[in-house]
């Protein structure tokens, strides 16, 4: 069940009404309803993977309790490593086994040994990377004594499986979500309206921006040899907007949906394409994943303490792991590596926390140097996206060599003027709302109701105009 499907448009109001209007409403009943709805939501993809989700939930719940109750350090360690290895084991089997097997086979054939690696014919369970990371952070936090183990199984299961975040995040923390699950939730008009507004903006980003960019970007990426450098350059830029619209649109719908149930999820995006350097970009792109890697990998590895070489090593490790997290393909690893290289100057010269505040805060237009910095950062990010989007390294190299040719300075073969106009309007709205949680949060709030509603109807009309057969979200494959 996709967020941009008719099924979800029916499912969500039903759950909403049952949730707020159930007879003799209690928190426990509400949580049971949300959990059942989440399992139904997940089961709509493939009910067989529900068993994996439930098993993973049971494992982390049980090991969490065991770690907390154990007095001996060895026992604590045993339960901790059991949980970590089983969680990562599942991820390894479903997501990475075939990659390692075929890479190993390729390596052997490189030295003249011909082998047919044994690969698995398995489908990647949707959301496995996300819910595994939920579970991992929970168990690590208990082991590090940052939190107590959750005793209530329903509450813990809901933390792992809450449907808005189940398949593509944001990657939640027990410290943030569990207290909300355990607290009585009162309906809040402002929060609910804000949630609907965020859903609307998310749908706009997905259907009007991402899906329309995808139509052109896919054609160009599918056959780069047929296009001039300028067209390929345009294709890469369109993919940058596609992936942003797709993933941040998904996150907006997830956050908005959760707010309808009185729950605030972690923010995942903060206008990343208005970043002035790569460090800022990573504070604004897929925030829940970046902070997860920071807290559970970078800092345990020593973080920025211990000298420049350790800092460089740790930075490379988290970017490579982050790339690998996205998928078992060398293209993702190179994508991560590129970002590690991009960020190096700011790590070495200790300028990675230079741009902490929002660009041109309190001003209408940015300074020229900020504008140049944003453009350079954007182009670096776009270059790295080529690897992210490419099917293979050969494909990426073919694409890039096509860009850097004489034809880069010719007219693109495709000129999607209407789409470019929509993207510019979209960027204007994002720019105006860049200090808010999401661009539409305060956009037009001071306008008369008639004008504001007309604007929302225009957004709905645009969504409706561009809508078509449901299109998957890119991050579902991760």
């Amino acid at each position: 069940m996709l967020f941009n499907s008719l099924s979800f448009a029916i499912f969500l109001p039903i759950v909403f009404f049952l949730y707020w209007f159930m007879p003799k409403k209690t928190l426990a009943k509400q949580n049971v309803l949300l959990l059942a709805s989440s399992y139904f939501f997940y089961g709509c993809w493939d009910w067989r993977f529900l068993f994996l989700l439930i098993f993973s939930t049971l494992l982390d719940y049980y090991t969490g309790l065991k770690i907390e109750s154990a007095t001996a350090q060895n026992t604590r360690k045993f339960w901790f490593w059991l949980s970590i290895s089983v969680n990562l084991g599942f991820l390894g089997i479903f997501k990475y086994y075939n990659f390692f097997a075929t890479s190993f086979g390729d390596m052997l054939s490189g030295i003249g040994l011909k082998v047919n690696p044994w690969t698995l014919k398995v489908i990647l369970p949707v959301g496995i990377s996300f819910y595994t990371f939920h579970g991992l952070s929970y168990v690590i936090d208990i082991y590090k004594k940052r939190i107590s183990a959750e005793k209530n199984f329903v509450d813990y299961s809901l933390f792992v499986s809450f449907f808005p975040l189940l398949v593509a995040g944001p990657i939640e923390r027990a410290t943030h979500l569990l207290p909300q699950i355990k607290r009585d939730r009162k309906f809040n008009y402002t929060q609910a309206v804000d949630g609907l507004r965020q859903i609307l903006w998310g749908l706009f980003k997905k259907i009007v921006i991402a899906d329309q960019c995808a139509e052109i970007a896919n054609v160009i990426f599918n056959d780069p040899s047929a296009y001039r450098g300028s067209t390929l350059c345009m294709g890469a830029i369109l993919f940058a907007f596609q992936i942003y619209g797709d993933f941040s649109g998904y996150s907006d719908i997830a956050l908005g949906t959760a707010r309808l149930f009185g729950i605030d999820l972690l923010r995942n995006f903060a206008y990343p394409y208005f970043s002035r350097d790569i460090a800022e970009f990573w504070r604004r792109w897929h925030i829940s994943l970046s902070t997860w890697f920071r807290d559970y990998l970078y800092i345990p590895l020593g973080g920025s303490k211990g000298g420049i070489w350790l800092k460089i090593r740790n930075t490379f490790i988290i970017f490579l792991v982050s790339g690998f997290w996205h998928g078992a393909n060398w293209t993702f690893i190179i994508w991560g590596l590129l970002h590690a290289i991009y960020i190096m100057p700011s790590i070495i010269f200790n300028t990675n926390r230079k741009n902490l505040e929002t660009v041109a805060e309190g001003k209408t237009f940015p300074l020229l140097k900020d504008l140049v910095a944003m453009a350079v950062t954007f182009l670096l990010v776009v270059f790295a996206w080529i690897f992210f989007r490419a099917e293979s390294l050969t494909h990426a190299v073919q694409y890039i060599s096509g860009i850097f040719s004489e034809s880069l300075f010719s007219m693109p073969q495709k000129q999607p003027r209407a789409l470019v106009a929509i993207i510019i309007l979209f960027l204007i709205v994002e720019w105006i709302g860049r200090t808010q949680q999401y661009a539409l949060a305060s956009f037009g709030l001071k306008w008369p109701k008639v004008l504001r509603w007309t604007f929302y109807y225009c957004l709905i009309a645009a969504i409706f105009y561009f809508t078509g057969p449901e299109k998957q979200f890119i991050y579902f494959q991760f």
Partner: protein
Amino acid sequence: MKKFLRTLLFFAIPVIFAGVAFEILLRRIPNDYSYKSNFLDKNAKKIEVLFLGNSHVYYGIDPKFIESKSFNASNISQPLDYDLKILEKYQNDWKHLKYVVVPVDYFSLFTRLESGIEAWRVKNYDLYFGMYSNCDPANYFEIVANQTKYNLERLRKYYLHGESDLRIDSLGWGTANHSQNSQDLIESGMVSAKRHRSSSEKRFLKGQINVLQKMADFCKERNIKLILFSSPAYKTYVENLDINQMNKNKQILNTFAASDKTVQYYDLLTDCRFDSVDFYDADHLNEIGAKKLSGIFDSIIKSEPKN
């Protein structure tokens, strides 16, 4: 909460109203499915020869060249399970039906409508034939099956210019593939063969063989002859087919026909009676080819001993 619901309702009314109006207007546009469904509702009792199947029959069988009362109930991408659903839907109406002719092509046993790029067509059976495909609500609405800009174009054409979505004649034959605008046979052969190659291997095979068996049983119970055939195609299509998939298809059909005397199978895939002038593209006949193929079936039917 009351304030929220009131505001939401007030805000949603124009959206819901527009959506409902759009849906109603779209459904009122005559199309192949609504025509064929209405035709069968009224005339199923009179039909003697029923042609079912995919675009190969849709464009390839012109019932006016069949002497017996016949109707082409095929549709583009219509798979075997939907052929069976049509048969079953009118099960009490086939009073005079003597022959059911169904193509079982290179891809027929390996694909399902719901899982391919043509899945949007499922709604046509739910909406216009009154069938039940599955619980996906998207299959019961016109507005979500296609891109809205395409739907707006349909509305514009019909309500402003009177052009409906009908692409068939009165007996269900698809009239769009005319010899005057034939496609490149080499290019289309490669493209179609690639498109028809099964990626799902044996995932649907068992189910579709089961459908064939049910169809044969259905016909046998009613003393109807089931004629299966492989549609004629141009050599550029045949040469690009996956040999394993093609052989598997033929082997299944030969075995199936051999095990059931009431079922006949004709392999016309490489039939030498068809030449380049008969094809619109490498796997679809034009009006010349359709006349020829219809004539072949007319001869087959005439040569059958009368009961």
